[in-house]
């Protein structure tokens, strides 16, 4: 009796219990398939081989269920034949149609006061609902019936990738052609305008990147690539013809000039601190022999970041101005949050080819959505009074936007800029898959050769560039003008003049270098450029460290690893794969219903259905298994570390700094030592995932606990709680919604890394995406796979956000 009372006071708990019970009942009903679906692909194979049917009729299904056995179509949702709708006018369905109509009209009839007049008054409603009844009863339900219990004749959903692929090929090669002169065959040839357009975009970006690159490291190669853009001949030919012209041998800027420039710029924008940071970062890049790749990366970022910011602000402003635009782009922004990078790459290769420009485009596509989101958020948060003040000051629309709205929203917009810069550098490695040069490419090489030390140094380069660019842009945005000082020309332009002076001094310096280093180092002028691999390096040290770890710990680690794999990971994976699809749906939609009612259940259900209908349901299950494991461990570690660190001010600061660094640190680097220690196993992937995904829960725990109102804590102390009591009774409950947002971010981060884990070797969605990428790529598969990953993320995101919003309202925090 007590137990029943307990449950009736907690309806959500009861509901959850029911969901779990149903889930386990369904799990236990795999019976005859049990051995087959543990090795999931065997199930699919058996169907293909005809050993089991892919679906059975209604009567047989019923008898199977009565025999405690799920029919096969509930184990693996059959593919939807969406362009062969079934229309059925047999008596049963007519009856269903009538029943549906009656059901729809019942409420209106029951509530009407004047029953005799009801028909006349509500005729329109009756007709429209009757129509709905007919559609549902005669079309929808028969189709559904056929889908589940009929013969699967065509698997149209599985053909979508091919259709998309064909469509993109059509767009590129056959749509809207125009003759273009081709100098190679000396004749006109038909080109698709789409391709010409994408080429023009690619060429423009490439030109910009090369322009910056020419300025930074310049020299021979970039002149050639620039020449390639401008002339019809090959750049090399052109260069040979113009060999003796002065511009063919324009030297690059020596690294000393840029370094001095960084010192000066940092000082001018903010002061000594930034000056030192910027300057020493440059010195690091040069001294470690990474100057050239670093400048390649920089040139790429200096083009991609401004373009992303510009697009982001433009779309943000448009969305702010027009509800329609906002409505249209919102779903894209949502999907972009969890869409895996690799999935972008396939279509980009198809449309834009390979090279720096393709990398830049991938980066822009990746970095723009957060910028749009933050711009829109910032603009929406501008108080209406400030807007009125601007209008009363006599601003016209343009002034209102650029002098009032955007500057007032700058806090959020600057966070957006920061995000863009971080994303650009995060993409540096991934962009190198499709031909972007620079640090990312070198990092990839180092990874392939398992050179930990070098990879680490390269990673630090990337972090430094990210941090310096971020701080410089922030300082630039916050710069203040002084109207009082009545300065002379020299005083006003002293930094510029100083730079000019330093410029020539450094050139002179580099020139002297020609003699200084004349005999010592085979003509390498260190004052001009420290070539790749000629700088100092800490590689031997790291290598020794890794060697030590491998030789001394390997045995112990192996035991642990085997235990983990055999006792934890493999059973977990097996049980995920053994889930009949219908059980997965019951669980996810049930949780959705408990958290956010019917609406959430439907949203989560649709995400899952999409995945279930693609050919990659099993792979998605593996992704989900890794995701679950990684998120549980990360959240566990993150909250504990966060909770401990928040007890002490210094520790708090330190842990936040660590979080920041690890977030920009290229995630690939974690992979090397882990692989060396754990081999190519799921453990390696999961460890790499956890190292990355543990950041958000830590950060959000720290923030959440720190933001618990002082007064509440004092009140708790006054009522005599112990420190632990206070922690668990007050601080954690209040911080919990915020921590849950950290969990949400954790899922996004983990998903990102699980997909990257394909490099180590997994069998999940990421692997499939990777294969699409390397096998030349089918646009359709790439996109669909990307959507599968994105939808897993979005389903979790939806659940957690809904829960956190409700919870915060309940607690009265906002």
């Amino acid at each position, binding site marked *: 009796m007590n137990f029943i009372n307990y449950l009736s006071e907690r309806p959500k708990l009861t509901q959850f219990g029911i969901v779990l019970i149903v889930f386990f009942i369904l799990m236990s009903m795999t019976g005859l398939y049990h051995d087959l679906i543990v090795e999931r692909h065997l199930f699919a194979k058996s169907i293909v081989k005809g050993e089991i049917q892919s679906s059975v009729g209604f009567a047989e299904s019923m008898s199977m269920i009565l025999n405690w056995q799920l029919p096969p179509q509930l184990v693996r949702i059959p593919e939807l034949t969406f362009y062969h709708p079934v229309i059925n006018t047999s008596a049963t369905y007519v009856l269903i149609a009538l029943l549906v109509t009656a059901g729809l009209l019942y409420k209106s009839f029951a509530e009407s006061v004047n029953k005799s007049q009801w028909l006349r008054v509500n005729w329109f409603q009756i007709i429209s609902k009757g129509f709905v009844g007919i559609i549902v009863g005669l079309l929808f339900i028969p189709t559904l019936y056929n889908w589940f219990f009929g013969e699967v004749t065509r698997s149209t959903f599985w053909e979508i990738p091919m259709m998309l692929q064909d469509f993109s090929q059509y767009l590129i090669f056959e749509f809207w052609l125009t003759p273009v002169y081709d100098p190679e065959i000396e004749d006109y040839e038909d080109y698709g305008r789409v391709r010409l357009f994408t080429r023009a975009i690619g060429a423009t970006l490439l030109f910009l990147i090369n322009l910056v690159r020419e300025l930074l490291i310049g020299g021979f190669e970039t002149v050639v690539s620039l020449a390639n853009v401008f002339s019809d001949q090959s750049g090399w030919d052109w260069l040979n013809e113009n060999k003796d012209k002065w511009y063919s041998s324009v030297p690059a800027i020596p690294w000393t000039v840029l370094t001095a420039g960084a010192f000066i710029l940092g000082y001018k924008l903010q002061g000594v601190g930034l000056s030192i940071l910027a300057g020493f970062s440059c010195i690091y890049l040069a001294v470690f022999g990474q100057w050239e790749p670093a400048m390649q990366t920089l040139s790429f970022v200096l083009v991609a970041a401004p373009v992303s910011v510009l697009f982001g602000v433009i779309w943000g402003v448009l969305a702010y101005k027009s509800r329609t635009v906002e409505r249209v782009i919102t779903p894209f922004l949502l999907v972009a949050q969890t869409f895996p990078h690799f999935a972008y790459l396939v279509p980009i290769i198809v449309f834009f080819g390979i090279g720096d420009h393709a990398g830049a485009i991938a980066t822009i596509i990746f970095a723009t959505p957060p910028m749009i989101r933050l711009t829109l958020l910032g603009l929406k948060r501008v108080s209406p009074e400030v807007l009125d003040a601007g209008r*009363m000051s006599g601003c016209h629309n343009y*002034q209102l936007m650029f002098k009032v709205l955007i*500057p007032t929203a700058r806090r959020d917009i600057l966070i957006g800029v920061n995000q863009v810069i971080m994303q650009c550098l995060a993409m540096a490695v991934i962009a190198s898959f499709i031909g972007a040069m620079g640090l990312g490419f070198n990092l990839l090489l180092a990874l392939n050769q398992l050179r930990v030390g070098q990879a680490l140094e390269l990673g630090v380069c990337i972090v430094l560039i990210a941090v310096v660019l971020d701080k410089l842009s922030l300082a630039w945005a916050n710069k*203040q003008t002084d109207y*009082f000082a009545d300065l002379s020309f020299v005083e006003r332009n002293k930094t510029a003049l100083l730079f000019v002076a330093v410029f020539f001094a450094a050139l002179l310096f580099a020139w002297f270098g020609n003699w200084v280093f004349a005999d010592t180092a085979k003509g390498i002028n260190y004052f001009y450029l420290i070539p790749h691999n000629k700088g100092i390096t800490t590689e031997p040290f790291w290598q020794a460290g890794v060697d030590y770890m491998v030789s001394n710990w390997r045995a112990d680690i192996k035991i642990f690893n085997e235990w983990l794999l055999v006792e934890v990971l493999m059973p977990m994976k097996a049980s995920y794969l053994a889930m009949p699809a219908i059980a997965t749906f019951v669980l996810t939609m049930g949780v959705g219903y408990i958290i956010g009612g019917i609406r959430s259940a439907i949203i989560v259900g649709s995400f899952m259905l999409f995945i279930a209908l693609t050919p990659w349901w099993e792979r998605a299950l593996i992704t989900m298994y890794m995701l679950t494991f990684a998120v549980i461990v990360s959240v566990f570690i993150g909250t504990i570390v966060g909770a401990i660190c928040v007890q002490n001010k210094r520790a708090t600061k330190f842990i936040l700094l660590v979080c920041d660094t690890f977030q920009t640190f290229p995630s690939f680097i974690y992979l090397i030592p882990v692989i060396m220690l754990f081999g190519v196993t799921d453990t390696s992937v999961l460890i790499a995932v956890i190292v990355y995904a543990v950041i958000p829960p830590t950060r959000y725990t720290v923030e959440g606990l720190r933001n618990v109102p002082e007064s509440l804590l004092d009140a708790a102390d006054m009522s005599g709680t112990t420190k632990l009591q206070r922690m668990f009774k007050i601080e954690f409950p209040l911080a919990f919604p915020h921590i849950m947002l950290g969990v949400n971010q954790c899922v996004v981060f983990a998903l990102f890394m699980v997909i990257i884990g394909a490099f180590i070797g997994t069998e999940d969605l990421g692997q499939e995406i990777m294969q699409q990428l390397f096998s030349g790529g089918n646009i359709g598969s790439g996109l669909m796979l990307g959507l599968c990953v994105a939808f897993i993320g979005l389903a979790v995101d939806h659940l957690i956000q809904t829960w956190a919003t409700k919870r915060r309202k309940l607690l009265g925090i906002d």
Partner: protein
Amino acid sequence: MSDQQPVIKCDSVYKIFGKDAEKMLQNANGKVVAEEFQKAGCVVGVNNASFEVKKGEMLVVMGLSGSGKSTLLRCISRLTDATAGNIYIEGEDLTSMSDKELIGLRRNKMGMVFQSFALLPHKTVLENIAFPLQVKGNSTKDSIQRAKEMVDLVGLTGRENYFPRELSGGQQQRVGIARSLAVEPDIWFLDEPFSALDPLIRKEMQDEFLRLQGVLNKTILFVTHDFDEALRLADRIAIMKDGIIEQLDTPANIVLNPATEYVRKFTEDVPREKVLKIKSVMEPVGDEKDFSDLRVSEDALIETVAEAVLGDPKSVPVLNANDDIVGVVHSSKVIHVLFGENSTLESNA
């Protein structure tokens, strides 16, 4: 003649929020009942407002929260378009102005101060004040020069390069005031400018405001929900309820002759010595000759002279602007005002 012309003239102005506001208003034929509109999903902001404000006059608009004060102000500054009715600024029809004319009007003739200051967070004090001038296209040097004058005027000298976040509320509002005055507007709108300040600062800012008005003599529309503030500042007061102007009159008349039950309730607790002038309690000079040596002006508020009059056993002569004796006031009358029932008093202020 131009003195006769009202600076602001409202002619049955309506502002109704909601989708089919205009249609509903037409159907209602000018008779707007807030509840009916509410049922249809509309909110009545301003309901049939008609009044005039003369040059140099200060009209204070009063009412509870949500009574439509801000909405009225926003209609007159055309930050929102009125749903119906006409508004004239110095005889020109505001509602039919093009965007360009409107911008011109705002750049040269109007200034506004906001409750939450509405300063631009990325600009310094000086830049904020110079902003309307720069928007107008004045050179940076001129605008900054003028802004400096304004800084001195509102007493913020030395804080030119502070950012709004580095200033106290009162100082921020001084910046808001300076900004609204930078273009030398003829019409000055203030929407609860002092509500966000604590009482002491508010008093100080009111004094400051009166000082400025003494120097500048603008036409002012001032919104507040603080009756004391209204009494201190107003030439005339408009009391609003649910978008309707219940009464528009001098402070004394509003207190003494409330037009509606609502206004009476509203003014019930107002100490009358703060509103009434000596003029309203003086009696004609009778045959008595034994006057006090004290003299009071007929325009003085009773509150300000009560103590002196009460301290004097004899009748005190009342002077008009030309220092002629126009009547006498007895301490008994003053006591009556201070402590007695108010219903019997007649006003001739």
